[in-house]
C-alpha cells in the first residue's frame, strides 16, 4: 500500500498513482500563474474550479489509500530525506486534504456570483489567482513532512490571504486595516514558527519531521527543544486564532469578501490546528507533551476561556459575519480543548470537530454572504425579516445554526458529544459541564439570528428576492452535509479515530 522509500537507491516514481502527492500541490500551484498568464476573465473561474476539483479527486484517492492506517511517503525530485523534501500522507492529513479541497470545490460555484458583486471586475483574475495560491498553501502545509517546507507554505497561504482580505475593500475600506492587522500578526506568528524550527534544527540537525521525531525520541528533550516547542505552539496558535491571539480574526472575516470568509473560516484555522496536532503528537514525543505544563495549565484554561469569552462577545454582536467570526474563536476553543486532553478520544474530538465545524461554518458564512448580496450588508437591522423574503437561504442558515449549537441530528452534535465523552473519560467532569454550558451561549447567539430572520419585519430598501441558484445549491449542499454527517458518522468519526490513533502512537507513526 504505502510506497516504501528506498534509503540508498533513488526510486523514480512512474505511475500516476504514485505521483498523486505532488500533483495535489502542483495542480493548483501551476493553475494560479496560468490564470494571470491567460488574463482572460472568462477562463479564470473555470480554471480555478477545475484545479480545485482535481485536487479534491486526488485527495479522496489519497485518503482511500491511507484509510487503513498506513502512510505514503513521497520524495520530491527523488531526493531522500533528510536532504530532500518529503511529502508524507497519513490518515490525519489526508483527512484534512479532503476537507480543504472539498470545501473549496463547493464554495467556488458560490463564489462566482458572490465575488462578482463584492469585488471589482478588473481584479477578478488576480483574485482567483490569490485564491488558488492560498488553497495551495493550505494544502501544502498539511501534506508536507518537512518543517521548513511547512513554513514556506504557511507564508504562501498567508501572503495570498492578506490580498484576499484586502479585496473586500471595494465594499468596506476597513478591509484594508483588517488585512494590515492580519499581515502584522501573521508575520509575527510565522516568524515565531520559523524561530522554533530554527531551534529544532539546532538541536537535531535535521528539518524532516520524522527525523526530528526520531532524534528527540533518542536523545530526549533539552532546553532548546523546549524553547522550540513554546515558539511553535505560540506561532501556530496565532495562525489558529487561539484565544487571546484571535484579535486579527474578527475583522478579517468580517470585511473579507463573503466567499473568502467562508473558505478561510472553514479551512485556514483548521490547517493551523493540524500543524499543532502534528507537532504536539508526532514530532515531540507524546511523553514530552504529557510532561509539559504548557498544555494543561496554559492552553486548557485558554480554550475554556475562549469558549465563554468569545461566545459572550458573539452574543452581543450586531453583524452576522462578525458574530460568526467570534463564534469561530469559541469553536477553536473546543478543538484546542480536545488537544489538551491528550487522550485518543480527545484528539478524535478535535479532528472530527475540525471537519464538522468546517462544513457548518462554511454554510453559515455562505448564508451570510447570500443575505448580504440582497441586503447590502450583514448587519442584523439590514437582514431582519429575511426569513420571509429569502426562505431557502434562511432555512439553510437555520440548519447550520442548529449544527453550530450542537443539536442532536446535526454534525455539531457529534463532535461535542465526543468531546464531552473525552472529558468525562479523563475524569474532567467540570470541563465537560463547561462544554455543555458554553453550548447554551451558542443557543443564545444563534437564537438571535433566528429571531432577526423570522420574527422581525423586513428592513426597508432591501432587495426582496431569493439568492441566485448558483449560491443556493452550494449553500444547501453544505447545510445538508451538516445533517448527513449528524447521522452517518462512519466517514467522519471513523477517519478521525484512525487519524487520532496514528497521532497518539507518537513517533511510531512517523518512524519507519
Amino acid at each position: 500500500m504505502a510506497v516504501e522509500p528506498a534509503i540508498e537507491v533513488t526510486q523514480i516514481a512512474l505511475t500516476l498513482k504514485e505521483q498523486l502527492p505532488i500533483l495535489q500541490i502542483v495542480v493548483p500551484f501551476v493553475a494560479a500563474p496560468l490564470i494571470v498568464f491567460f488574463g482572460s476573465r472568462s477562463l479564470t473561474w473555470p480554471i480555478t474550479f477545475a484545479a480545485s476539483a482535481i485536487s479534491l479527486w486526488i485527495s479522496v484517492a489519497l485518503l482511500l489509500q491511507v484509510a487503513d492506517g498506513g502512510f505514503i511517503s513521497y520524495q520530491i525530485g527523488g531526493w531522500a530525506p533528510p536532504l530532500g523534501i518529503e511529502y508524507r500522507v497519513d490518515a490525519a492529513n489526508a483527512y484534512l486534504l479532503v476537507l480543504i479541497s472539498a470545501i473549496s470545490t463547493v464554495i467556488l460555484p458560490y463564489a462566482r456570483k458572490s465575488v462578482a458583486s463584492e469585488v471589482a471586475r478588473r481584479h477578478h483574475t488576480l483574485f482567483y489567482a490569490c485564491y488558488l495560491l492560498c488553497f495551495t498553501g493550505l494544502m501544502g502545509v498539511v501534506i508536507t513532512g518537512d518543517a521548513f517546507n511547512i513554513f514556506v507554505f504557511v507564508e504562501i497561504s498567508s501572503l495570498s490571504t492578506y490580498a484576499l482580505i484586502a479585496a473586500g475593500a471595494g465594499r468596506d475600506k476597513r478591509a484594508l486595516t483588517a488585512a494590515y492587522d492580519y499581515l502584522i500578526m501573521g508575520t509575527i506568528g510565522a516568524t515565531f514558527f520559523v524561530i522554533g524550527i530554527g531551534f529544532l534544527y539546532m538541536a537535531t540537525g535535521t528539518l524532516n519531521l520524522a527525523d526530528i521525531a526520531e532524534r528527540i525520541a533518542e536523545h530526549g528533550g533539552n532546553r532548546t527543544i523546549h524553547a522550540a516547542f513554546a515558539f511553535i505552539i505560540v506561532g501556530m496558535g496565532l495562525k489558529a486564532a487561539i484565544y487571546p491571539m484571535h484579535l486579527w480574526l474578527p475583522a478579517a472575516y468580517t470585511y473579507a469578501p463573503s466567499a473568502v470568509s467562508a473558505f478561510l473560516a472553514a479551512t485556514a484555522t483548521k490547517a493551523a490546528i493540524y500543524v499543532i496536532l502534528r507537532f504536539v503528537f508526532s514530532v515531540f514525543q507524546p511523553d514530552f507533551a504529557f510532561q509539559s505544563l504548557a498544555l494543561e495549565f496554559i492552553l486548557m484554561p485558554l480554550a475554556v476561556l475562549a469558549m465563554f469569552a468569545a461566545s459572550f462577545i458573539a452574543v452581543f454582536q450586531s453583524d452576522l459575519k462578525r458574530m460568526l467570526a467570534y463564534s469561530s474563536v469559541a469553536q477553536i476553543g473546543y478543538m484546542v480543548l480536545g488537544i489538551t486532553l491528550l487522550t485518543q478520544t480527545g484528539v478524535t474530538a478535535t479532528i472530527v470537530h475540525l471537519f464538522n465545524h468546517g462544513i457548518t461554518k462554511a454554510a453559515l458564512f455562505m448564508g451570510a454572504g447570500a443575505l448580504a448580496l440582497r441586503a447590502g450588508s450583514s448587519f442584523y437591522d439590514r437582514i431582519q425579516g429575511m426569513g420571509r423574503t429569502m426562505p431557502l437561504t434562511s432555512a439553510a442558515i437555520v440548519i447550520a445554526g442548529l449544527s453550530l449549537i450542537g443539536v442532536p441530528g446535526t454534525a455539531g452534535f457529534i463532535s461535542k458529544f465526543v468531546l464531552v465523552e473525552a472529558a468525562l473519560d479523563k475524569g474532567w467532569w467540570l470541563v465537560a459541564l463547561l462544554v455543555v454550558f458554553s453550548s447554551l451561549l451558542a443557543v443564545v447567539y444563534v437564537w438571535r439570528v433566528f429571531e432577526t430572520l423570522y420574527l422581525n419585519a423586513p428592513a426597508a430598501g432591501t432587495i426582496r428576492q431569493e439568492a441566485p441558484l448558483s449560491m443556493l445549491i452550494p449553500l444547501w449542499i453544505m447545510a445538508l452535509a451538516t445533517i448527513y454527517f449528524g447521522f452517518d458518522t462512519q466517514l467522519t468519526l471513523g477517519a478521525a479515530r484512525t487519524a487520532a490513533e496514528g497521532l497518539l502512537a507518537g513517533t511510531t507513526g512517523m518512524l519507519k
Partner: protein
Amino acid sequence: MADIFPVAFLYFLGAALLLLLPKGPARGSLGLLIPVLGGIMVWFLPEGLLWNVRFLGLELEFMRVDKLSRVFAVIFSIAAFLGNLYAWHVRDTMQQVAAMIYAGSAIGALFAGDLITLFLFWEGTAMASVFLIWARRTEGAYHTGMRYLIVQVGSGVLLLAGAALYHRETGSLTFEAMTLGSLATWFIFLAFGIKAAFPLLHNWLQDAYPAATVTGTVILSTFTTKLAIYALARGFAGTELLIYIGAIMTLFPIFYAVIENDLRRVLAYSLNNQLGFMVVGIGIGTELALNGAVAHAFAHILYKGLLFMSMGAVLFRTGTAKGSELGGLYKTMPLTMIFCVVGAASISGFPLFSGFVTKSLVLSASTKEQYYFIWFVLLFASAGVFHHSGIKIPYFAFFAHDSGLRPKEAPKHMLLAMGIAAALSIAIGVYPAPLYALLPFEVKYVNYTTPHVVTQLQLLFFSALAFAVLMRTHTYPPELKSVNLDTDWAYRRFLPRMINRVAPGLWSVWTAKLNFWQERFNDLVRSLHHTHGPEGRLASVWPTGSMVLWIAVLLAVTLVANFLSL
C-alpha cells in the same frame, strides 16, 4: 419485525403531511386519522424491544413495549385524538404541526428504552409544545413561552447530564428502575421532577398553561406532566422521598386554587395537585399503589382535558376565563356547563365517576403500607380538590352572579370532544374493569362497597356544605382581578430587581478595577513602544501593538511553563 417502526414517526410523518394539505377539513381529518392509526398500532404491538438503531456506538432502543408504556400510550393516543377534534376549527399551521410533533414526541418518549432516546423525545416535547404558547402571538405569550422553554430545556439538559454520568457509573444507558444516591440519579430525578412540577419546581406549569391558545392549553395539559409521571414510575418507583414530595404537591396548590382568578390557572393548580396523588402512588411503590398512580393518570388525562376544554370553550366564546368576569353562562351554554360538571364530578371522585375508582387505589395503598399521616393529607387534598375544581370552576363560570354575557353555545366539534371525554369518564367510573385490565399489575380491588361509597359521599357533601355556609356568610374569598405571588416571583421579579440593583454597583467596581489595570497595562505598553517602536506615538497602530504584546506575554508564559516542567 421489519413492519414495526416507532409510533412517534407516524406522528412526525403526519406533521409533514399536514403541510402539504390545504387548511380546512382535510387537515382536520388527518389530525384525527393519525392518532387513530397510532392508537391501533399501540394496541396491537407485541411486548418487547422492537426497533433499535445504532448511533455513535450506542444502541438506541426506540420501541420498548411493556404494559406500563402501553397503557400510557393508549391514553396519549386518545388524548391526541380528542385534542385534535377539539381544535378542528383551528386554521393555524404552526399550532397544528406543533401539536402533532408534541404528541408524537411524548409517545416516542414512552417507548424509549434508553436514556438517550428518552432525552431526544424529552427535548422534542419541550421544543414543540412551546409553539402552542407562542401561537397566541402576543408579547406576554412570547415572554411566557421563553420562560417555559428555558425550564423545559433545562430539564432536558439535566437529563442528558444525568444520563452521561449514569453511563460512566454503570456502563449502561438502559432506562430502568434506579435508586437515588449518586449524582447521576439525582440529576435524572431532578429532570423528571421539573417536568412533574415538584413543589418549588412547579411554577412553570401555572405560568405557561393559561398563556397558551384556547386549544393549545388542552393539548399541553395532557402530555408533558404525565410523561414525567410515567418516567418516575419507570425509574423511581418505591422511592420513599416521592411520598412526601407528592403529599406536599397535593396540598399547597389547593390554597392557590381557591384564591386564583383565572379559571384556567385554577385548573393548572389543580392539575398540579392531582399529579401529587400519582407521585405519592409511585413513591409507595407497591403493586396496588403503582396501579393507582397509572389508573389515576389515565382518568386524570380525560377529566382534566375535559375541564380545560370546557373553560376553553368559555374563553373561545367570551374572550375571558377570569372568574371575576364570568357568571350566569348556563343560560346559553348549558351543554358546556353539563360537561364541565361531569369533569368536576370526576376530578372530585364522586361515585360513578372516574376519579372515584382511581384515586381510591392510591388512598388505600397508603393505609395498607401504614402511611397514616399521608392518608390524612390525601383525604384533605381530595376534599380540597372538590372545593376548587368541583365547585368553584362550574359555579363561578356558569352560575354565581350573572355577568350579563350571553355567548353562543360552544361549536359542535368542541361539544363532541367534550362529550366523548365525559362519556369515557363516566364509563370508567361505572365499569372500571377494562381500565384495570390495562394496568401493569393485576387489580384485586373492589370499589363499590357500602363504606367506601358512604364515606366518600360524606366527605364530598360536607365539603359542599362548607362551601355553601361560607358563601352565605360571605366568608368565601370573592373572585378579584389580581395575580398571586408564587415561586415564579423569584425569577420574574426578585432576580431581575436584584440584578438591576447589584449590577450597576458591580459594574462600576469592575470597570474601576479594569480601568486601573488597563491603565497600568497601557503605561507598560506605551513605555515599551516609546523605547522600542519608532512610530510608538502613532495611535493608529495601537490595536496591532497590543495584539503583539499579547503574543509576547503568551510566549513568555509558555516558555516559563516549559522550563518549569523540565
